[in-house]
């Protein structure tokens, strides 16, 4: 189900990642990113294989699995794929749709420019990655 440009901009304005963006910038984001849907059970990123880009969840839920065991779940407003894109390395986990997933996708090569164009998005991403590092340290113990 594709949203109209206006519905999409409304949805984006409600997501934490884009909360600081004024309307014209939200329209740019909606324009640059493409909507994608995945059925329940689909693996969107595969551990150890090359990354396919950056995803922001609009609706649905995914499980993050490392070697088959679930370490986290992500839902509306959460994002994934940025780490392997920015590091230029294969994903460190599987990301699997737990039910029908509706997401926005940005191709890997476009992410860096996108973040530079939207520093507030970059700053929110930085906070999230810091939180993931805290959580990752916890998994270890």
């Amino acid at each position, binding site marked *: 189900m594709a949203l109209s440009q206006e519905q999409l901009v409304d949805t984006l304005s409600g997501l934490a990642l884009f909360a600081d963006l004024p309307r014209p910038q939200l329209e740019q984001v909606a324009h640059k990113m493409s909507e994608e849907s995945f059925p329940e059970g689909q693996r969107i990123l595969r551990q150890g294989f090359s990354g396919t880009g950056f995803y922001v969840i609009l609706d649905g839920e995914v499980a993050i699995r490392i070697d088959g065991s679930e370490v986290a779940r992500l839902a509306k407003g959460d994002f994934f794929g940025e780490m392997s894109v920015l590091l230029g390395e294969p994903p460190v986990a599987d990301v699997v749709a737990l039910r029908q997933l509706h997401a926005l996708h940005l191709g890997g090569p476009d992410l860096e420019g996108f973040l*530079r164009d939207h520093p507030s998005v970059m700053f929110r991403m930085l906070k999230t990655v810091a939180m993931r590092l805290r959580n990752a340290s916890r998994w270890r113990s």
Partner: protein
Amino acid sequence: MAISQEEKAAALAGLPLFQGASDESVARLCAVTGEVEYEEGQFIVRQGQVGSGLYIIVSGGARVVTGSHELARLGPGDFFGELTVIDQQPRAASVQATSSTVCLAIASWDLLELLKSDPALALNLIRGLAARVREQTEHHRH
């Protein structure tokens, strides 16, 4: 002991946190970096406090403690405080000087402002943190 601007810049540029940062970014960091001295036994940061800054040990040493339990020893080149600056969570441990110790310190507010106005530096830091998430995850697996 006064640290020269060159030494400061070299210490900052050498941190894994700021690896690959441009000369301009390092110069901006330098401008907001201060030098603080601690005596043996003095606390540099305390567990439970919300992050006041990022610290880099230049000389001397420190121990990381929670309550009476020692978690790690730190020495010249080691740094701490970067996560609580970014996510503003309380510090998970205290750091106490074990001898006369000199640190470079960047206040939370200054570092956050820099990260907001310097996309290259922020991007660099995201990469650095992401690499550590990856390391932790790999460590978990093996």
